[in-house]
């Protein structure tokens, strides 16, 4: 070892690098566990996001259909309003039904049938 290196390393020598199986287990087990947990977490989050988006789309569609339903109901009611029906009936030649005959059980009109 040169003087310069001795000054830098303070005379400390690196020991021989040895792989011990037990140490490796201690080192990698948490890493593997963390990776598994992270993967699970990512899967969960992505699924939640996808489900959330789907629910949001369903809700938007539900509101759209509700709006459409209300709109159609009002349009239908407007088209079948009393004033429109009245106009249409008069246009078709109908007149108010003023001559009404009530039939009772025992009336001759019923018996003849």
């Amino acid at each position, binding site marked *: 070892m040169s003087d310069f290196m001795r000054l830098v390393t303070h005379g400390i020598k690196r020991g021989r690098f040895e792989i011990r199986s037990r140490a490796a287990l201690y080192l990698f087990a948490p890493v593997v566990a963390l990776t598994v947990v992270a993967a699970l977490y990512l899967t969960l989050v992505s699924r939640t996001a996808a489900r959330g988006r789907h629910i949001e789309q369903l809700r938007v569609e539900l509101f759209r259909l509700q709006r459409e339903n209300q709109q159609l109901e009002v349009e239908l009611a407007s088209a079948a309003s009393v*004033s429109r029906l009245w106009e249409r009936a008069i246009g078709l030649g109908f007149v108010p039904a003023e001559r009404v005959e009530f*039939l009772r059980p025992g009336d001759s009109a019923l018996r003849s049938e």
Partner: protein
Amino acid sequence: MIAEGPRRRLRLVTTLLIGLVFVIVAQLVQVQLVDHRFYADWAKEQHERPLRLDTPARGTIRDRNGHVLAGNAVMWSIEADTAYVVDAQGVATALGPLLHIPAAQIEQLLRGQAAWVRLASPVPKELGEQVAALRLQGITVRPLWERKYPETRLASHVIGFCNAEGTGFYGVEGFYDVLLQPERTEWTGAVDPASEQIPWTVAPVVLPQPGAELVLTVDRTVQALTEAELSRSVQEYQAEGGTIIVMDPRTFEILAMASMPNYDPGHYNDFYGLNPPPFEDPAVSQQYEPGSVFKILTVAAALDTGLVTPYTTYDDQGSIEVGGVAVANASRQAYGQQTVTDILIHSLNVGVAWLSTKMGSDTFYRYVQAFGVGQPTGVDLAGEVAGQLWLPDDYEHWHDSNLGINAFGQGLAVTPLQMIAAVATVANDGTRLRPHIVARRVAPDGTVFTFRPVVEAQVISPQTARTLMEMMVQVVEEGSTQARVPGYTIAGKSGTAQIPIPGGYDREGTIVSFVGFGPVPDPRLIVLVKLDRPKTSTWASETAVRAFQRLAARLFVVLGIPPDGAQAVAQVAEVVR
């Protein structure tokens, strides 16, 4: 072996590093544990915003057969988040022709200081969808609800109206506003920079509920016929206005309630300029002196106390003094010996004044109050007033003469609904129910709440009610003959009342009215007709009574109410031929 110098430096570095670790750990403890709440809230403020979920529709209002009287249509609001508009000129050029706004004006708005600009609202559904299809960056197309009244003016006073903010006023819209209002759900969640919800947080699954649906007791066909008759009568008799109420006396359900002048609730803004605006329902919000129709109540009280019978006689001298004031018959004539039934047939003021003084004020006013005069009926409509009834313990307003004057319906005031409810009590065997306009309420989950009749009071005995009903039939048969409907036995009473003005009574105008019900003895229909200041005649017999006859004849047919007897069948066919 390491020399002493390096060893010391190593210790120093180690100590420093350990100290640094402690500082970092302490800081982490401070941030993560001690100040956790502060930093969590700070972060939340930055990425979470309150989001309003789409508001569902206001509750629908239907007539008793399910026809929509008030519903909801979709309109759109075109808005801009100016910060997200990249190409203001392009957006303005695209929107200008569609919205009929000069492109330069739109561009100026988009380049302005405001972060949010409403470009057009409300716009029709088709236009909103056209703009949405352009997918312009920074332009939002938001749906809005607009209240629609497909029957336009029909039952406008009963329904009321709803303003652009979704608040109901007058009528059912006003009374049931809280029930009709949709649920507004606000949810705080994570948003992106454009304030749109980030989907990885799921919004509450419970969706906001629409408003409750109301099914009225009103029948739109009956309502239309009633309004047509009122319109005809107001025009034909040149009246300033009027009210007609049709009710089922067995349940006090209001089948139709019309007043003129009316309005179109879908365009209520157009009527604000009128003086007064026609929004208040005169049937429940305006009071009048009922005049001779009120004699029914005075006679009912006298009969029920057992003081008189229909055949009890008195000597009618044309006037009677009550509390120092002379009460005279409307005709100014003396009628001599008259029965209590004759009092109703000839509508004798002297006769009812004689009855009220005979009863005494305590008894008379006890019955008048039991009939609901001077207190709201409790009908489920906004703006009902109580009417006006001074009682003997009110020394400031009540005078001894009131006992005589009140007996024939002057010096007190009622609403048309109070009056018809009081007379319906006679038709309902003496039991006064609470008039109501809503038959059913349907909750958003489909649960149906049915409104049951509420008994207010047993005012007179069923026997008295039957007796009085027979007397009222005689009134129509011998007095108000214009009210007769062929084939049906009708009971009724007309009234021609003076109108109070400051300092006395109006010498020219009158309020004419008629209340009738049938077919007796099991009435299924009661109708009150009231016309304000008719000019062709000031008498009820020539105005309100005729209107009643036309309407009742029509309603018996429309509602499928058969005539009284087998012989009547031929009569009906004969008369209407």
